[in-house]
């Protein structure tokens, strides 16, 4: 199980990075996730899809540690993970973007991305306030990393623009940049293409693939756009009403009758 295997498209998939076992999540009387198990392998792009209300975002929130499931275990890098605060999860190397953009509107793109590196900065508050000694060196080092990401995502022209003035598609890209700035092991993307036009979607797809390819970042993403998911991902988990109804390569999932009925609404005989 921990050995590297070759996925059908010839890509090398690494050992299991995160393993979710029998997760159940309830809000009062509502069961959002029912006994779901799947794993995420090192270096792959793993998609979670499903109709509205299937529990995809809840699942992502479980992975990111925002929700603590009532039942089930989460294993990360070979260790079982107990209940954690979001900042502890972030320190483990999990970064995410949000379905509804959560950036600081009044701050510049550069400063927003710099906040992504907060966990990687060690200088004390006084040293940072005076911007002296270690703090200065540290900021220069971190700025270098941030500039590489700015270059990578091709947002040099908006480096100093306040985020509030940017169009939607670019804000999404800035959010991705901020998540990348944390140098994550796993990057969680909550509907990265929602509300985008075709061109913006194509750009975003390219960036996601490039991130995966260039930095070797493992990516878990939720997405509505089936075409995008099938093109991007190595493996797909399909959810419906809180249950897992499919898991496998895009081709396997596409031909799974249960998935087809969930998506196309085939009548249940």
């Amino acid at each position, binding site marked *: 199980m921990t050995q590297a295997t070759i996925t059908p498209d010839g890509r090398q998939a690494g050992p299991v990075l995160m393993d979710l076992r029998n997760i159940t999540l309830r809000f009062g009387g509502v069961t959002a996730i029912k006994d779901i198990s799947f794993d995420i392998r090192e270096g792959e792009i793993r998609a979670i899809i499903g109709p509205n209300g299937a529990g995809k975002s809840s699942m992502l929130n479980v992975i990111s540690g925002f929700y603590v499931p009532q039942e089930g275990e989460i294993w990360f890098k070979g260790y079982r993970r107990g209940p954690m605060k979001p900042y502890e999860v972030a320190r483990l190397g999990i970064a995410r973007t949000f379905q509804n953009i959560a950036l600081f509107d009044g701050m510049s793109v550069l400063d927003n991305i710099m906040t992504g590196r907060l966990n990687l900065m060690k200088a004390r508050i006084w040293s940072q306030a005076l911007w002296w000694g270690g703090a200065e060196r540290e900021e220069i080092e971190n*700025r270098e990393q941030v*500039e590489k990401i*700015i270059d*990578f995502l091709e947002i*040099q*022209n908006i480096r100093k623009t306040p985020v509030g003035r940017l169009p939607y598609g670019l804000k999404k890209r800035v959010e991705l940049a901020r998540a990348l700035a944390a140098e994550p092991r796993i990057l969680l993307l909550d509907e990265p293409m929602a509300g985008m036009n075709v061109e913006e979607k194509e750009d975003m797809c390219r960036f996601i693939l*490039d991130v995966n*390819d*260039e930095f070797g970042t493992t990516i878990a993403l939720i997405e509505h756009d089936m075409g995008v998911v099938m093109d991007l991902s190595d493996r797909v988990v399909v959810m419906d009403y809180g249950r897992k109804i499919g898991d496998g390569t895009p081709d396997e999932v596409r031909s799974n009758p249960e998935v087809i009925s969930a998506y196309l609404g085939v009548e249940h005989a």
Partner: protein
Amino acid sequence: MQNAQAAQAGLQSIPALLARNAERFGNRPAYREKEFGIWQSWTWAEAADEIRALALGFLVLGLNRGDHVAIIGRNRPAHYWSMVAAQMCGAVPVPLYQDAVADEMAYVLGHCGARFVVCGDQEQVDKVLEVGDRAPSVQHLVYTDKRGMRKYDHSRMNALAHLQAEGRAAEQRLGDELDARIAALGYDDTCVMLYTSGTTGKPKGVVLSNRNIIETGKNTAGFDHLTAAEEVLAYLPMAWVGDFIFSIGQAYWAGFTVNCPEGAHTMMTDLREIGPTYFFAPPRVFEGQLTSVMIRMEDAGRVKRWLFRHYMDLARRIGPALLDGQPVNMLDRLRYGLGSLLVYGPLKNTLGYSRIRVGYTAGEAIGPEIFDFYRSLGINLKQLYGQTEASVFITQQPDGQVRSDTVGVPSPGVELRIAENGEVFYRSPGTFVEYFNNPDSTASTKDAEGWVATGDAGFFEQETGHLRIIDRAKDVGRMADGRMFAPKYVENRLKFYPNILEAVVFGAGRDMCTAFINIDLTAVGNWAERNNIAYASYQELAGHPQVYATIKQHVEAVNESVAADPMLSGCQISRFLVLHKELDPDDGEMTRTRKVRRNIIAEKYADLIEALYDGRDAVSTRTEVTYEDGRKGEIRATLTIQDARTFQSQTMQKVAAE
């Protein structure tokens, strides 16, 4: 005489000039590029080292004398280095337009038989790979930007930095060979080959020798007193002759600094940060900047608006005179000084023109208001007239003799004559050697005595000796009733309106003139926003009745001004339509330097032209469009056709009055 001096000094090639600069200006910056948010710089000595390493790398790959090396990418030091490195090996650099689609590239790569291709990034590599068998000569690719390239089959490609490392390692083995090849470069050897985009037919490879480039660089650097202290911003396509002359010819001759922007979309920010002292831009850049200034002033507070208007009026009145050194009274001078402090200085700083000493515009006619705006701010903006075959310079305006309607006096060393049909001919040290593998075209363009036909009709002004260009000679025609038809003349007047980006006028052999209009999305979009006009697409905005009404006013105003010229009064536009898409080089409607390809447009939109002439009010059409990645699509639209008022020509009115 001067040739002899240059020859004596051994400065017969670009690599020789590089060696001189590395010695003389060793510690001065030769190249700067903004990357990762910081201006990285290379001195002449460092640049020489980088270029040598690259040249050795080419030798490792087996580059032979006389081979062609294609370079496709945006303006980056590494790409300029590739050109000079290829020259060092005795090969010929061939820069290509980076926005060309694979089909266009296939032709050029196949035509010049390039063995090596230097690509800027993955996008360019993909295009060259797509060309594949259509350019069988291509053996090896070199790419600058490593991003996304990890998984490619590297048996036939290299990263540029790796090639340099290989070259450095081979210094002892191949150093002597390289020195021998550099020493063998002669004044009449090929320096560069540039493909002219051509408003008609297939592109032609213009062969320019070291003599062409170095003589032109030397003469024109002298004309404008360019020194090693100049700063230029290299942002125009590398495949265009102008960039080669400014960023290599003149830069290597004078030893000044070439600054490369971070990317095309940061050009304006980078321009402001560098503050070039010597600047070249086609009119559309100046138009775009002026439009954005005007749009932003409309958003400014009342006091600022008043200040701006008041001082711009003053500047318009006396600014050009001050710049030309003509007498201006003391009070006005003082007021202009105050204006500099309050308005002109900050404005120039915002535009990036604080330090500008010499600015040039060429390629298209520039609107007199736009021209005067910059001149009145004290920016020494001038015009030049040139073409690839002349190594750019044919005529240019000397300081103090600048006007918007002439293109100046012959550049140093250039002889000019006007043929009987009005076509302009020139002969100069910059005159090209030949069209590559195309003796027929060479013979029909350049005669035995070295005179070259420009294809433009023009005349010398009696009193000043300045050249004025009317139109492309072959575009000047007659209408059905024998009146003169000069489409460019009318189009330029239309394009002087910020709302109109492009215009194409038809009428040769017809009884009236008609026009296609392209709106300028920035200007019209801003206007729509201000007036609460909602639109979802370019097409919808273009077809909006109020947009039509505005364009109609512009067309009628142009008609009125055209009517004032008895010779051209027949060119008034009777009917027009606003096109549903922007004319685009990807669709072949314009050249890569954004000149309208009249014949192709006439052919492609034959249905629209027919509708313009048969009196219909509207026409529906389908148009094929090419996306940036070469895929094709189709847009459908129903276009409105409107009539515009035409005016009696003044001479005719006189006749009528009598």
